[in-house]
C-alpha cells in the first residue's frame, strides 16, 4: 500500500507542477505582449500623438488626434443606441422571473453577445451605408450599439438583482407604486452597478476594428460630420501596422497603448465600483 500511496502523492505533486507550468506558459506570451505594448507604446507617446493629425507617409511628427476624437464620438453615439436597450432591457429582465418571454430574451442576449463583430459591421453596412450611400459615424454607431447592449443588459440585470428585496418591500409599504420604487429607490441603490454596466459596455466596443472599417472606413481629418467617413483609433492602428514605415509602427504602438489603457482603466474601475457596491448595500 505504501507504494500506491507514494505514487499518488507524486501524481499530486506532478499534477500541481503541471498546472503551475501551464499558468507560466500562459503568462509568458501574455506577459510579453503586455510588456511590448507598455514599453513600445509608452515610449512612443508624445504630445504630437494626441494633438496632431496623420502626416503624409514618410514624415514624422504625426499623431492620431482625429482618430481619438473619432473613437470618442463613436462611443458616444453607440451609447445612445446600446445603453437604452441595455439598461431598460436589463430592468425588465431583473423584474421578471424565468418564464417564456424573459427566458428567450436572456438567451438571445447571450447569443448576440457572442456574435462576431465583423457580422455586426456587415449588418450596419447594409442598414445604414447602403441606403445613405456613404460611410458614416451613424453606421459605426449602429454596429457598435449592437455589440454593446448585451454586455450592458446582463450587467444591469445582475446589479439590480443584487439590491436586497427588502428595499423594494420597504418602498412599497410606504405606498410607493412599483415603477416609482424602481426608479427612485432601487436604481439609485444600484447606481454603482449601473455605472459599472456602462463602463463594461464601453470597454467592449472601444477596441473594435473590423466593424468600424466596414462602416466608417477611416479618415485623416478631424471628425466633422456624421454623414461621412471618420477616423477611429483601432482602424488607424491597423493601417499603420501594415505600413512599412517605422514611425508609423511607433504610432501604432502608441495607439495600442492608449486603447489598452482605456480598457484596463474601465475594467479596473468597474471592479472597484462593484466591490464598493456590495459593501454598501449589505452594510447595516
Amino acid at each position, binding site marked *: 500500500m505504501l507504494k500506491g500511496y507514494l505514487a499518488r502523492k507524486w501524481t499530486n505533486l506532478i499534477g500541481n507542477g503541471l498546472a503551475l507550468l501551464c499558468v507560466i506558459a500562459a503568462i509568458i506570451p501574455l506577459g510579453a505582449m503586455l510588456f511590448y505594448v507598455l514599453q513600445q507604446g509608452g515610449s512612443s507617446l508624445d504630445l504630437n500623438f494626441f494633438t496632431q493629425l496623420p502626416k503624409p507617409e514618410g514624415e514624422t511628427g504625426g499623431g492620431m488626434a482625429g482618430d481619438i476624437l473619432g473613437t470618442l464620438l463613436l462611443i458616444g453615439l453607440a451609447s445612445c443606441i446600446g445603453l437604452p436597450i441595455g439598461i431598460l432591457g436589463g430592468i425588465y429582465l431583473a423584474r421578471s422571473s424565468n418564464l417564456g418571454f424573459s427566458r428567450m430574451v436572456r438567451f438571445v442576449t447571450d447569443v448576440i453577445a457572442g456574435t462576431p463583430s465583423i457580422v455586426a459591421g456587415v449588418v450596419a453596412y447594409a442598414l445604414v451605408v447602403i441606403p445613405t450611400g456613404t460611410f458614416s459615424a451613424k453606421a459605426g454607431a449602429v454596429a457598435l450599439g449592437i455589440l454593446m447592449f448585451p454586455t450592458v443588459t446582463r450587467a444591469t440585470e445582475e446589479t439590480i438583482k443584487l439590491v436586497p428585496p*427588502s428595499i423594494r*418591500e*420597504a418602498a412599497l409599504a*410606504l405606498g*410607493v407604486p412599483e415603477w416609482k420604487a424602481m426608479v427612485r429607490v432601487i436604481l439609485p441603490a444600484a447606481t454603482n452597478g449601473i455605472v459599472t454596466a456602462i463602463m463594461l459596455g464601453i470597454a467592449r466596443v472601444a477596441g473594435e476594428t473590423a466593424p468600424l472599417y466596414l462602416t466608417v472606413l477611416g479618415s485623416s481629418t478631424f471628425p466633422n460630420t456624421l454623414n461621412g467617413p471618420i477616423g477611429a483609433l483601432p482602424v488607424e492602428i491597423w493601417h499603420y501596422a501594415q505600413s512599412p514605415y517605422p514611425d508609423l509602427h511607433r504610432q501604432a504602438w502608441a495607439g495600442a497603448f492608449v486603447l489598452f489603457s482605456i480598457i484596463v482603466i474601465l475594467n479596473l474601475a468597474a471592479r472597484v465600483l462593484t466591490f464598493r457596491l456590495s459593501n*454598501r448595500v449589505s452594510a447595516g
Partner: protein
Amino acid sequence: MGEAVKSDEVSAWYSKKLAVRDVSLEMKPNKVTALIGPSGCGKSTFIRCINRMHEVIPGARVGGDMWVGERNVYDRGIDPVKVRAQIGMVFQRPNPFPTMSIYDNVAAGPRLNGRVKKKVDLDALVETSLRRGALWDEVKDRLKEPATGLSGGQQQRLCIARALAMEPGVILLDEPTSALDPIASYKIEELLSDLKDEYTVVIVTHNMQQAARVADFTAFMLAGDDYVGELIEYGETSQIFNTPKDKRTEDYITGRFG
C-alpha cells in the same frame, strides 16, 4: 387617531395554495393587538393582507374583506398603493434605504408621495416622526449621515419613524425585534406602548413574553395538518395567557409545541 381594523373571513393564497383561512379578527383602535403562533401559522401572511402587501408577491391572492376604519380596502376600484400609504409597516429586519441619509429615509415616504413640498414642513415632519420613534435625541446632530451607520436597534426605530412620517392610522409590525438584541428590543417595546396613543398597532411576534408585555389584545393562530393557518382564539391578553379557552392555545402557551 388610530383606526379600527376588522378582517372578515380573510383568506390568503400563494398561487393555488391556500395559506390562511377565514380569519375574522377585530383590532381595536388605539390598542396594541398581538398575533402569536408557531412558525408557519400564517400570522405574517395575514398581517400583510391588512395593507395589501400580500398581493405584491406574484400569484398571491386574498379573499374576504378587510375594513380599515369605514372602508373595505379590498373594494373594487381602491388602489392598493393608496392603501399602503395610509398604513405603516415595519419589517423583521431593519431595511432603511441604504443610499439615503437618516433625514432622507424618514422623508422618503412623504417625498415620493408628493405629500409635503416645502422644506420647512418636511423638516418639521421629520423631527416629529423621529421624536415619536424615540430616535430624535440620538440622531438630531447627524441627520445627513447615512442611515446604514446606525446600530440595528436604531435602524429599526428609524424604520418606525419612516412609517410614522406618512401619518398612518394603523401601524403593522412584523416581528420587529426578532433581529435585535434584548436591550434594543426593550426600547422598541417601550415605544410601542407610547405609539398606541396615536395609532392602532398590530404586531406579529413569536415571542410570547413580548406579547404579554406590550399587547392589549392577543390573537393566536395555528396551521393544521393541511398547513393552512387559522385563527384559533382571540381576546384580551390577560385572558389568553391566563385562561385560554382553546386547548391548542393552552398547549402553545405552556410550550408543548411551537
